[in-house]
């Protein structure tokens, strides 16, 4: 080992690193951003979840129970008059979980020490989001048990046999995580892979000189853009079909909704995502920079898009950020089709947002590959 040579090599590498603003930015900001995002978003703590409440008892004990549920900050109770309204809010995603307190809750609670039947509180959640549902259910069980014990102790009654928590999942009653992950994986794979593959395409052509040559031909920017994204889009559409088949045949997870609709929506989303890849490619100087940008993009994709972690349990401002990712909306649509069998009518707002993202991203991609700067 020649130490002088080694020192020379190390010095060159350090100089190259410190003189490259992009690498320096990555080195400084990514660890900090990851730390903050992990700290805020990936905490397993259930906090500030909107909890729908139908209080049919309207008694002091039920009011106390609701107050206790809200006091810890874990849940933010939102009253509903009817069970139907509550379930509609749950399906629409306006609330994360719900409890239904029966009319004779007070009487059953106080008789719990002697009666054969325990008082019941029903907990309802969207089983599609299995992780969130599991966490919320656990917290609700603990809080309800603690509150009932406290109420009975204050009344001078023994702890009795406590409150029975009856759970009901609107979808995915077994809280099987596979459909959740499968439908989310489409979002992750289609977002990450499309961006990664296209990110190197234009920059590679720039380096080899073919892109400049292309720009001097009569081909328009739109033709160049479509020439890039359409063949790639077709390949990824085939990928979607393949993934649907493998998920169905191997994992036994089939879409509850229309397969054709799912493939169509996914194919459109691929075009949106390819547009993003082209923007990265057209704004990168080297293939390495394009790959680095793609990887950077994939970090928030995993963390914020709802692919792995429920958006509903994230802080409100992070939820707003999550809405900026097209992947968030696609994953929402994917899960709606896969797990709840929803169709174009109910998904219209999300589809409209995807269309808007498509117009914005492909439009911007078009500008970035426009010849004249």
């Amino acid at each position, binding site marked *: 080992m020649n130490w002088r040579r080694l020192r020379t090599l190390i010095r060159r590498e350090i100089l190259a690193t410190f003189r490259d603003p992009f690498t320096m930015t990555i080195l400084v900001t990514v660890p900090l951003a990851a730390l903050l995002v992990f700290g805020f978003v990936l905490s397993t703590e259930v906090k500030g979840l909107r909890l729908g409440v139908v209080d049919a008892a309207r008694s002091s004990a039920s009011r106390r129970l609701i107050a206790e549920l809200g006091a810890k900050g874990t849940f933010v109770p939102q009253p509903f008059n009817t069970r139907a309204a509550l379930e509609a809010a749950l399906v629409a995603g306006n609330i994360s979980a719900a409890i239904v307190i029966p009319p004779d809750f007070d009487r059953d609670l106080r008789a719990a020490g002697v009666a054969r039947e325990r008082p019941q509180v029903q907990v309802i959640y969207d089983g599609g989001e299995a992780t969130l549902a599991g966490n919320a259910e656990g917290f609700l069980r603990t809080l309800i048990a603690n509150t009932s014990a406290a109420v009975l102790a204050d009344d001078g009654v023994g702890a009795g046999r406590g409150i029975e928590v009856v759970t009901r999942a609107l979808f995915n009653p077994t809280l099987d995580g596979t459909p959740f992950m499968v439908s989310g994986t489409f979002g992750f794979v289609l977002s990450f892979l499309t961006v990664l593959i296209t990110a190197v395409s234009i920059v590679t052509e720039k380096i080899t*000189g*073919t892109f400049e040559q292309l720009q001097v031909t009569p081909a328009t920017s739109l033709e160049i853009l479509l020439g890039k994204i359409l063949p790639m889009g077709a390949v990824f559409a085939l990928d979607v079909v393949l993934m649907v088949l493998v998920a169905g045949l191997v994992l036994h997870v089939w879409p509850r909704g229309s397969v054709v609709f799912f493939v169509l929506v996914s194919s459109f989303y691929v075009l949106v995502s390819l547009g993003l890849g082209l923007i990265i490619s057209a704004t990168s100087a080297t293939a390495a920079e394009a790959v680095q940008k793609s990887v950077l993009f994939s970090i928030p994709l995993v963390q914020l898009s709802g692919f792995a972690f429920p958006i509903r349990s994230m802080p409100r401002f992070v939820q707003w950020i999550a809405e900026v990712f097209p992947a968030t909306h696609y994953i929402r649509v994917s899960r709606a089709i896969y797990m709840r069998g929803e169709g174009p009518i109910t998904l219209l707002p999300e589809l409209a947002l995807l269309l808007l993202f498509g117009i914005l991203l492909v439009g911007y991609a078009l500008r970035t590959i426009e010849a*004249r700067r």
Partner: protein
Amino acid sequence: MSTPIIRAHGLTRRFGDFTAVDNLSIEVLPGTIFAFLGANGSGKSTTIRMLIGLLRPTAGTIEVDGIDVIKRPRKVRDHIGYMGQKVSLYAGLSLRENVEFYAGLYDLSARQLAQRWGALRERFALGDTENEKAEDLPAGVRQRAGLALSTLHQPRVLFLDEPTAGVDVHNRELFWELIQDEAQAGVTAFVTTHFLEEVDYCDWVCFIDAGRLIANAAPETLRQRHSEGCRIRVVLPVEEQARCAEVLSAVGRPLGCDATSLQVAVAALDPQVLAALDAAAAVCPQAEIHIEQTHMTDVFRRVLAESGAAI
């Protein structure tokens, strides 16, 4: 005098505080080979990118084949052929597939392609390699293929950005012959190069330094202005020298002589000098005539040194 096919006036391009091209004005006549010279970073590529509509100038006007390139950059693309510093062949495709790709972009029909490529393939000696992958082609062949592709749609103006970089001497000569053929067929060639000796293949030379034009003339004119001209040496037997000297006196310059040759220095190879040399060759058929011109590198060294002077 014919109308210039390329006209640029007051062309300026700034990148932030840096001025890459500064108030450049040039005119190129149709059917000529125009050399655009300069050191690395002098503004050659920025200029050529503005002329072909890839880069919008900060100021100035550009007209190519009667088209305002700034206002209608797309329109000019049917009229021009371009060969960049990196020969733009798609790796993974054979040469033939690359040709078909570019023919498609220029909307050539199958018949037009067969006709045009048939002629080019033969003229550019590409027949043996057309089925080889682009990445497997030798540098000289790639360069010829690049030129063939840029002329596929029969453009009126060819922009060639350092077309002979990385090519051996033999292939460079071959390449320049092809460019000269194109010029003889009426195509205008705008060529950037840093091989100064290649200027002798060209009809006109521009020299750019730090974005500013510092020379703009025919190669011979530049030689006259910035060198002592040519030195002619006629090697012949001593008994022939008197007869030959009489003929060469028509040049009007003092003659030198030694045991084997006569020597004369002239400002340029003007018609009078050439006529005298023809007469000398006729009178003394065994005479060998050697012309030593000032090397263009020396000419441009002087141009650079005098770059503050009027051009």
